């Protein structure tokens, strides 16, 4: 007898499997896609959601933390909101449905639903490993999204905003995006909730950067206080490709953002920056893996966390340097400003190095507000709550200011941070 079948399903596991059963016949896909969906949901049923015994989920016991999953409601539409940076082109996915009306020149896009229906999506639906719970849930239930391609050499002044707005129920989206050689763009992947009702969202983004592509990709997660957000970004960096990946978590009740990438072309460079604004009873996990597969690739990772109330945060960062990947240069740091005795942040940086001529380092710090700085602000007549907010803001604003080439973008992101702090500080 297979022991796995003995697992008693939790309410959340049952709800996910039921959501699949309820939508059979509606979920798009050709034969291959549909049979893969069956397999993924079967695995979910037998293996269950990951627990702390699964190494990569040790700090986020999804099976315990995910208490309930709202049922899918195909009729629930969220209204489109203004882009975060004025003047952006907006591609939206509302409750899983794609809207392609404002497509700038040099970008081709089609609804991911079509890729599911014609079966071209099937290879990308494979999970990354047996512990890839997000890939499994999303692969089983994905209903829509966008398949986007930027032409070779295409350059854009204004950012492209992919807006994924959700009111309640469930949304499972996918975004395979390819950047042609030498293309240059800023893309904001923005997840937001339009009300306080509970949503369950999974989203997988698959980025491929061809030679010399230069991309700023910003994940702005602003879900509601009752929402579960399971996000995954996969990326593959070609020769001399540059990716500046920024993850901003400013919402959600239970959040996991996975970032899994490969530097597979010489000269590839990743800049990862994370800002986790954590408050209330939320649990937020950022899990990152990067493999430097070839010589002469570089990466820096800086994660800044601000923890209020009873919030819990996790950062797991693993950098792998393959045997042949000589001259790799990688630096990772995770700094936490802990503003509550009841808050908690776990950082687990890891390096696995098989090459012998590399420069790699990592560090993690936990700090409190600097009292000398606080006194300085108070001594100028700034009241304590405001002075604290300024210092907390300064701690994370440095990360955003690195994007100084685009003033409107910096202003918009600083606005998100200060609005969040005004509510929580």
């Amino acid at each position, binding site marked *: 007898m297979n022991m796995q079948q003995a697992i008693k399903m939790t309410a959340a596991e049952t709800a996910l499997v039921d959501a699949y059963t309820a939508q059979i016949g509606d979920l798009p896909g050709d034969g291959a896609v549909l049979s893969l969906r069956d397999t993924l949901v079967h695995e979910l049923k037998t293996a269950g959601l990951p627990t702390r015994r699964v190494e990569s989920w040790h700090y986020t016991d999804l099976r315990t933390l995910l208490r309930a999953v709202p049922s899918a409601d195909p009729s629930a539409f969220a209204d489109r909101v203004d882009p975060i940076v004025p003047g952006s082109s907006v591609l939206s996915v509302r409750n899983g449905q794609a809207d392609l009306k404002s497509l700038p020149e040099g970008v081709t896009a089609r609804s991911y639903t079509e890729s599911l229906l014609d079966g071209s999506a099937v290879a990308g639906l494979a999970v990354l490993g047996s512990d890839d719970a997000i890939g499994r849930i999303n692969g089983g239930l994905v209903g829509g999204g966008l398949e986007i391609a930027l032409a070779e050499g295409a350059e854009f002044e204004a950012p492209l905003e992919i807006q994924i707005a959700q009111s309640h129920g469930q949304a499972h989206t996918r975004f395979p995006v390819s950047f042609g050689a030498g293309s240059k763009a800023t893309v904001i992947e923005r997840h937001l909730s339009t009300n306080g009702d509970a949503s369950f969202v999974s989203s997988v983004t698959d980025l491929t950067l061809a030679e010399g592509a230069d991309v700023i990709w910003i994940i702005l997660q602003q879900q509601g206080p009752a929402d579960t957000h399971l996000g995954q970004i996969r990326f593959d960096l070609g020769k001399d490709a540059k990716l500046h990946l920024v993850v901003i978590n400013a919402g959600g009740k239970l959040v996991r953002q996975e970032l899994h990438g490969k530097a597979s072309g010489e000269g590839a460079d990743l800049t990862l920056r994370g800002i986790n604004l954590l408050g209330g009873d939320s649990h937020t996990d950022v899990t990152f893996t990067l493999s430097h597969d070839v010589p002469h690739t570089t990466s820096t990772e800086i994660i800044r966390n601000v923890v209020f109330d009873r919030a819990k945060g996790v950062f797991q960062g693993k950098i792998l340097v393959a045997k042949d990947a000589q001259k790799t240069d990688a630096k990772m740091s995770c700094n936490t400003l802990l503003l509550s005795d009841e808050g908690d942040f776990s950082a687990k940086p890891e390096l696995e190095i098989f090459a012998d001529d590399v420069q790699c380092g990592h560090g993690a710090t936990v700090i409190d507000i600097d*009292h*000398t*700085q606080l*006194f*300085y*602000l*108070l*001594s*100028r*007549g*700034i*009241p*304590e709550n*405001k*002075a604290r907010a*300024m*210092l907390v*803001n*300064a*701690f994370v*604003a*440095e990360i955003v*200011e690195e994007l100084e080439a685009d003033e409107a973008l910096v202003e918009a992101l600083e606005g998100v941070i200060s609005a969040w702090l005004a509510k929580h500080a």
Partner: protein
Amino acid sequence: MLEIKNLHARIAEDGTEIIRGLDLTVKAGEVAAIMGPNGSGKSTLSYILSGREDYEVTEGDILYNGESILELDASERAAKGIFLAFQYPVEIPGVATMQFLKVAMNEQRKYRGEDELTTPEFMRRVKEAAAELKIAPEMLRRPVNVGFSGGEKKRAEILQMALLEPKLCILDETDSGLDIDALKVVADGVNALRSPDRAVVVITHYQRLLDYIIPDTVHVLYKGQVIKSGDKALAHELEANGYADIIEAAA
């Protein structure tokens, strides 16, 4: 304006007593110099006056315009017109200087029930005051005190003082680390603020600054007490003979 009566204070963390029965009165319009050897409690006094929480007052009182300020926090004291120019101005990466100045000015105005400054009015005031103190506009585009030289930091303190228009200005070792040209600029800035309704307390180790900011009264602080008071002649006497005689006479 300022009346310190039998003040006793200690470091909150370890209970070390620093101020031991200090009496001092400074009138409106007066410039009072506080001198004393290292470790006499000069800087501590400036922190206690401005409300730093690392110190505890155990006895005595501090009256400002006739009212005790012991229960007010540092920001309230500042809004009521007490300003400390720091010996070591604090660097705050990530906070823009202009934003800092604007928030400070407007928060003080709000506390006093005044309207906030409009942005053009704010800009005009900063530009004027910065020009007086020979502060380059590029400096104002940096985060608070970040990348400033020692002299630039001190000038930035005086700029803040000029903009915030306090009634009681406390200068803690403002001359330390300044060359003679910078010292003159800073002293001119302070002298420009002298007025019949404003008092200045100059804390200094050396007489040098007092050649440029001429004090009305000079007080010698030793082991947390004022052991001798006089006029500017006392500062010259200290310069010539050192503290030893006065300390001995007081013992």
